[in-house]
């Protein structure tokens, strides 16, 4: 299945990736998507994950066509 993956701010710099489409076989989770893209780079402790633009935990199930995003704590305002 196809998953769009996005990285923002310091996470984008950490992985040197901003956006990519990946192909996943079988059931997967947010954490598995991270591992597939980041390889052996661990997910920083305070990473925020989102699936389809809604915050989600690392064990959240990802479906075909989902958009999965990883970013640091927000600092707007």
């Amino acid at each position: 299945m196809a998953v769009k993956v996005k990285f923002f701010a310091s996470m984008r710099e950490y992985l040197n990736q901003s956006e990519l489409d990946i192909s996943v076989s079988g059931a997967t989770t947010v954490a598995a998507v991270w591992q597939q893209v980041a390889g052996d780079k661990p997910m920083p402790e305070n990473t925020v994950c989102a699936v389809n633009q809604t915050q989600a935990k690392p064990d959240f199930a990802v479906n075909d066509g989902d958009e999965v995003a990883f970013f640091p704590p927000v600092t707007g305002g």
Partner: protein
Amino acid sequence: MAVTIYPDSFDPWQALQQHQDSRLQSGKFGATATFVGTMRDFNEGDDVQGMTLEHYPGMTESQLQLIIDEAAQQWPLEDSFIAHRVGPILPGEPIVLVACWSAHRAAAFDACRFLMEALKSKAPFWKKETLADNSQRWVEKNTDGYSHPPA
């Protein structure tokens, strides 16, 4: 209820005036509480010469709309408005504007502060500062929005 993302400098008082003139019914609201966040030329003890505000297009707008809806459920508001700057920004330029209109002041004050705190903790924006020596750093977390008694 409106959310605006500005990629260029905006005038918060003019935006308020325009929003109020076009969206509010004169005579129905008695209280308008607003907050404007402006870029300072210092942060955490260092001089700052500029900043870049990154956001997550799509999720940012929907998160802001969610907190506006939450405020509207919690308080009797006539209207509310959030505007936020993105892109490169200089000291003295406005970053964020939050405004709430209500018949009475308690609701306007409470909802305005709620929106500001919710925005700071939930809306996907990130600040990268450029210091006086041209080095850059990500702002790592937002400061607390409430006063605490001295220890």
